[in-house]
């Protein structure tokens, strides 16, 4: 079974091309092909999971073919499968499959339907390639392909300037992090002399890599994850990524793009745990991201952006967990989060599909019109907030426990963020589905989505409800990802039960508070907002991060203007033009020399030859007696010379 894993990304890539080229003649304009591949991948991943749980697979599995050689090194093309890979494969294929099914309804009638499915397949293929790759080169290629796909899909409706802008923003911002990733990758190669993941992990495990070098490489690599997984301060692209179609948002936020960064850190975890500094960087970046994103979500009125901030916040959680040493916790959260965040986005997409607006202030009371969407959204919210016994509770609880074990400050960030999460999700839920209709026209127009959209919602809701409980039973997930390694720091012994209890209580209370405030006392939030206008504005402006980056752009603009003027007025004027002036003078000199010396010499040769010819031509009279005369003269002269002496 593992021997056929390599087919999965290749087939996906092929299908992306096939849909683009022949989609017109395929059933469902090519959607069927993409769905079929995703379904097959999901089934295969599921089989692998079951077999791995029964101990029927020898992990890690590795197979490769040589790609090219450089110096003594060899790059390979191959697959590397372990528990982490299988877990990721399930997430990617499951979400991709459901998103593609859901898109049948959501994207119906879109003029670029075929292209949309091609991009989705490419996106899935890149993510699958990234997941199963056995070396960091292919990993990096797929990593970049994921970026390209996000650009294509976020800017899918490129007629909208904001969508085109958002696509560019996502691409450029992540590229900023990818620079660090590339440098990190090369420094890792410098340390280990290989790109193969298994060898890197082995070398890290036996302590071949010096901790300082490992830390530097790990932090540089983490820069890539900061861009890809929208960590502080490169999180600015993700809210704007909401310009893409909602299923794309679900795919990006749940399974593919943002998960790539977390997956990368998990993949090279053996390198990270060599350096406490790198671990701290990851943990604190995650903590700050979690808190800032959650706070931004408090004041946002765009339904999808609230979810986007929540995604950033949850990604921060994952990084926090990984950095704090909670390897299993972080990946567990990645898995459960994939389901309920995909669910929330798809449900939000369903709402937006119905009311044609993103603004929560124009919604309200939609639960009457869209019961299935409401129920699934509610379940997703409960899972995200961490109400027991829904999925998020189990994973978030583990993260908080890991954070507390590492440092109380990290735990404080996590706990506050958990409360904020419960609050803003309650706010979003209430504003969208409860209360009174704010916009009667839109309310009356609203309707439940077709089964092809609600079906995936129901499946995801089921996954959101049970995945946390099911996967934490008998430590299934922990056994699957199977972390073996020595953390670079001591963890404190904490009571898991207390943390869980506190987390549950906080979630329930905070969510209740949010629901009560926005449902029964809508005046209070408005009043607070008016009172703390400065803070609200700050949050609205995302702590000025956008302005900060724009400022950087402006500064670099003016810097380049200065450089330009230096270049134009100094370098060009003096160095280039002066050089040109000199060159011209010199070539004039050369020309004079050429004309008067070289050419003259050539002409002189010609002239001499000409005159010599004119001279000797006289001998050629055409008179036979002349020639005879010369013969006779020669004979007589030779004879005279011969006999003059003797």
């Amino acid at each position: 079974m593992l021997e056929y894993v390599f087919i999965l990304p290749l087939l996906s890539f092929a299908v992306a091309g096939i849909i683009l080229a022949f989609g017109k003649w395929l059933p469902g304009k090519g959607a069927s092909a993409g769905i079929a591949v995703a379904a097959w991948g999901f089934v295969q991943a599921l089989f692998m999971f079951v077999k791995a749980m029964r101990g029927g697979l020898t992990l890690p599995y590795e197979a490769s073919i040589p790609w090219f050689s450089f110096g003594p090194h060899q790059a390979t093309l191959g697959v590397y499968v372990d528990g982490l890979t299988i877990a990721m494969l399930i997430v990617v294929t499951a979400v991709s499959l459901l998103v593609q099914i859901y898109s049948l309804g959501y994207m119906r009638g879109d003029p670029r339907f075929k292209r949309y499915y091609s991009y989705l397949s490419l996106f899935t293929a890149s993510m699958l390639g990234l997941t199963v790759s056995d070396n960091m080169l292919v990993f990096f290629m797929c990593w970049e392909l994921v970026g390209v796909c996000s650009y294509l899909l976020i800017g899918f409706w490129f007629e909208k300037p904001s969508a085109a802008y958002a696509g560019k923003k996502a691409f450029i911002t992540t590229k900023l992090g990818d620079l660090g990733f590339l440098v990190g990758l090369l420094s890792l190669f410098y340390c280990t002399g290989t790109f193969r993941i298994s060898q890197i992990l082995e070398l890290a495990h036996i302590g071949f890599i010096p901790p300082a070098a490992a830390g530097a490489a790990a932090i540089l690599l983490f820069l890539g994850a900061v861009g890809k997984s929208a960590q502080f301060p490169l999180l600015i692209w993700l809210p704007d990524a909401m310009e893409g179609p909602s299923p794309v948002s679900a795919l990006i936020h749940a399974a593919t793009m943002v998960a790539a960064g977390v997956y990368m850190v998990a993949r090279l975890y053996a390198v990270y745990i060599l350096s406490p500094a790198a671990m701290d960087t990851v943990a604190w970046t995650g903590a700050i991201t979690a808190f800032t994103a959650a706070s931004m979500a408090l004041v946002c009125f765009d339904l999808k952006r609230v979810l986007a901030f929540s995604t950033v916040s949850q990604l921060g959680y994952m990084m926090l967990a990984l950095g704090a040493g909670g390897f299993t916790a972080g990946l567990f959260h990645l898995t459960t989060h994939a389901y309920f965040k995909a669910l929330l986005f798809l449900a939000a997409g369903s709402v937006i599909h119905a009311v044609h607006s993103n603004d929560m202030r124009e919604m309200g009371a939609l639960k009457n019109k869209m019961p299935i969407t409401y129920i699934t959204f509610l379940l997703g919210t409960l899972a995200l907030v961490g109400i027991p016994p829904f999925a998020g509770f189990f994973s978030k609880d583990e993260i908080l426990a890991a954070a507390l074990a590492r440092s109380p400050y990290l735990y404080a960030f996590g706990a506050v963020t958990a409360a904020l999460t419960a609050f803003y999700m309650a706010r979003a839920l209430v504003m969208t589905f409860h209360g009174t209709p704010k916009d009667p026209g839109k309310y009356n127009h609203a309707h439940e989505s077709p089964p092809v959209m609600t079906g995936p919602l129901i499946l995801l809701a089921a996954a959101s409800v049970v995945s946390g409980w099911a996967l934490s039973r008998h430590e299934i997930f922990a056994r699957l990802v199977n972390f073996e390694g020595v953390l670079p720091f001591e963890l404190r012994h904490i009571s898991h039960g207390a943390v869980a209890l506190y987390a549950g209580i906080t979630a329930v209370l905070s969510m209740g508070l949010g629901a009560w405030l926005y449902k029964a006392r809508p005046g209070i939030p408005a009043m607070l907002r008016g009172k703390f206008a400065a803070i609200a504005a700050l949050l609205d402006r995302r702590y000025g991060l956008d302005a900060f980056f724009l400022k950087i752009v402006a500064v670099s603009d003016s810097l380049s203007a200065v450089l330009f003027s230096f270049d134009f007025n100094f370098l060009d004027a003096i160095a280039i033009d002066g050089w040109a002036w000199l060159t011209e003078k010199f070539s004039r000199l050369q020309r004079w020399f050429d004309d008067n010396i070289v050419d003259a010499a050539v002409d002189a040769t010609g002239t001499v030859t000409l005159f010599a010819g004119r001279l000797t031509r006289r001998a050629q009279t055409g008179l036979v007696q002349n020639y005879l005369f010369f013969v006779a003269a020669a004979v007589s002269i030779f004879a005279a010379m011969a006999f003059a002496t003797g």
Partner: protein
Amino acid sequence: MTLSHYLALSGALFTIGLFGVLTRRNIIGILMSIELMLNAANINFVAFNRFLYPGQHLGHLTVIFIITLAAAEVVVGLALVMTIYKNLKSAYVEDYNILKG
């Protein structure tokens, strides 16, 4: 009479012939001068045979061959002269320069 007498005579005859070849304008005159030179050579052959190798006949044989070849030469030469004369209407060699570039 000694050998050098005959050699001197043939030398004089040859030089006169040579002068004629170099200076006669008429093509027939040139041919006649060539005959003079050939005869000078013949005198040499016969004289050498007589004075240095008496009793042998190679010199005589050579002279006979030369006479025969001279006859052939004159026959062909005069035929050519007649052809050229018919075409160019001139017997003077300075007019025979149509091959001059």
